[in-house]
């Protein structure tokens, strides 16, 4: 299967180890992995902060870049949710604007033309492309469990781990217990339940800096629950949330590391991010 990796701008820039882990894991499972070089960012930050114009430009780039792949895998629940949930809305809004907008506005001539057709039941090219590409975009655990049909990925990670199901994985993509099923099959790994797991960690993109006091209060409760598990490692499928929780764990010198799900699933006896007994004392970014 020919799979495109959508690394996401955050992982590309700050957490390349997560991307390397995805590549390694997917190859091990027999996938041919492609990294389309023209990709940049899904536009989530722009859209969620109130800049849909910029976000729509990035969405157009995304569907252009990823058209034609069997599947697109993103090691980020929130970016996958962005494409699947918000792109159709952006495309609809862009089409509506192209119907109403002045000539030479944001929409291309081609789209204005098809926008007129829309009145008789047609979609614009952008809407069609989104409808084509968006359903093929998967978060990593979704891709493994639903598309490849595996839960035992042959991983080895001899640590006590707790899992934080990030909001967009949980309530956006409805990943359910997929990540837990994957983690339970990892040899050596002890999965301990996290109380209040479904509660938001308080990251929320620009929320973390626009409402820092509330964000920090939410994170304090999350960190409290994480420490109560006695786990060495906090795992999640989104590095943005892990950066926020890990940054707080690090500031508190908690000794708990944060590790992306992909890095745990990619780890083997021969190739482990850190050996048993060495999990503690990590910095904010965890095992990178």
């Amino acid at each position: 299967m020919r799979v495109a990796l959508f690394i996401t701008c955050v992982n590309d820039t700050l957490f390349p180890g997560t991307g390397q882990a995805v590549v390694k894991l997917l190859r091990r499972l027999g996938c041919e992995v492609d990294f389309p070089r023209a990709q940049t960012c899904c536009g989530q930050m722009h859209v969620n902060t109130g800049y849909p114009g910029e976000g729509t430009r990035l969405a157009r780039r995304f569907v252009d870049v990823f058209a034609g792949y069997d599947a697109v895998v993103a090691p980020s629940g929130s970016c996958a949710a962005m494409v699947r949930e918000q792109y159709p809305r952006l495309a609809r809004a862009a089409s509506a604007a192209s119907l109403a907008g002045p000539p030479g506005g944001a929409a291309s001539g081609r789209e204005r033309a098809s926008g007129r057709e829309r009145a008789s039941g047609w979609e614009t090219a952008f809407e069609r492309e989104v409808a084509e590409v968006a359903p093929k975009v998967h978060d990593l655990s979704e891709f493994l469990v639903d598309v490849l049909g595996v839960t035992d990925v042959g991983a080895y990670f001899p640590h006590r781990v707790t899992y934080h199901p990030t909001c967009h994985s949980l309530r956006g993509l409805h990943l359910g217990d997929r990540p837990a099923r994957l983690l339970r099959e990892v040899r050596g790994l002890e999965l301990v339940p996290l109380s209040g797991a479904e509660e938001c960690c308080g990251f929320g993109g620009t929320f973390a800096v626009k409402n820092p006091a509330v964000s920090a209060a939410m994170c304090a409760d999350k960190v409290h629950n994480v420490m109560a598990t006695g786990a060495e490692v906090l795992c999640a499928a989104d590095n943005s949330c892990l950066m926020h929780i890990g940054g707080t764990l690090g500031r508190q010198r908690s000794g708990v590391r944060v590790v992306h799900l992909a890095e745990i699933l990619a780890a083997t006896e021969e190739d482990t991010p850190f050996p048993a007994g060495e999990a503690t004392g990590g910095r904010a970014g965890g095992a990178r």
Partner: protein
Amino acid sequence: MSGTFLGMPAFPGNAAAAVHDSQLRFNLRKATRTIRGKRAAVVGELPDWEELRAAGKAIKDHTLRNLDRHLLRLEEAVTRAGGRVHWAADAAEANRIVAELVEATGETEVVKVKSMATQEIGLNEALAERGITAYETDLAELIVQLGDDLPSHILVPAIHRNRSEIREIFREKMGQWGRAAPGDLTDDPRALAEAARLHLRERFLSSKVAISGANFMIAETGTLVVLESEGNGRMCLTLPETLISVVGIEKLLPRWQDLEVFLQLLPRSSTGERMNPYTSTWTGAAEGQEFHLVLLDNGRTDVLADEVGRQALRCIRCSACLNVCPVYERVGGHAYGSVYPGPIGAILTPQLHGMTRATPASHGRGISELDASLPYASSLCGACFEACPVAIDIPEVLVHLRAKAPHPRSERLAMRAAGWVFDRPVRLARTQRLGGRLRRFVPGRLPGPGAAWTDTRDVPDIPAESFRDWWDRTEGGTR
């Protein structure tokens, strides 16, 4: 306080102050968690909850699409049943209508059934200006009124108060408003309720005019419906000679039969009960009673014009979204500066006031700083949408309103710069390489807006090589 508590600064400042009030956080945490658990249990026991939710959404959407038609049907039915219908375009007109109706009775005191609409328009204050005293009869509203306080929750307006605070309020203030609390009042819930009961009973028996809102209005029959827990509402609805109901135009349902859906959705979502203790319905004027219905717009038709934002008008004020909201749980209702706090307030208040235009509600000043900050009072975690019994996609509306809100200049520039970088992969790669080279110089505590991050969290290490450079150098890890 027409809709907004006047003079409130923007949300982040209010929230930061509230977060540090440990008593408040303790009270809220306890209350929201208890009610959250109860709701989850009674919602979980219905196998067809999702179908009910979809039906609730569909009925409301249908009604809103045909609002003009259904409102006229309602007016006709209420009039036929001996009631009088008044149309109020905004808060000022509604307040004037109600005040004149009360003055026509010659009374200077009214009793009130708990109502969000009358709080939204600041009715009590408007009546006070004309020499009319409005007495709240809902227990929690009574606590708020006696404490000279502001409501902080839709369903439990005094949620920020605990028992001993309530005892103090009763002991100090009840006597100034009517029958005093007993001198030996304890903070036992039963003793507190008994003091309130005696205080209110006197009021019910002496009042000639009552003012209510309504949870639902049935267009086909002209019936109004109030759901409550205490029975105080029913006292107000039945004892006085004149009943005036102020109801938002979106509270309409087309048919009597539609109640089947909402009488299941509302109690389970709001109090976490299978059924609420008291459901009162009335159609027009009862014998010997005068009935007036004031239909309130106050920004609602403007909200209706917004294709994305209009779903907020489906709201049945159950407050489930408040109870599950991690932000509300930590800051309480006052930080939202409006009678509608929490997630629904964050999308409803700015819309009712008009997001972009100067409206009468904004006193011609355009959007207030507080209203502009409300759509950002959320981490977009989606817990509200999941809990909402009429499936209002609150995160979708928040994001939609953020696009309409005014943005600070520095943020606009930063977003434009980020857009420019992401517009070409080569620009992104160059920016990443620059970051990689400067990685050693990133301080542990950032200056300026960065401090909002580093006050409580470490910054991640910037890697020496980005993923895309690694991919190029190693040909995708094959070399």
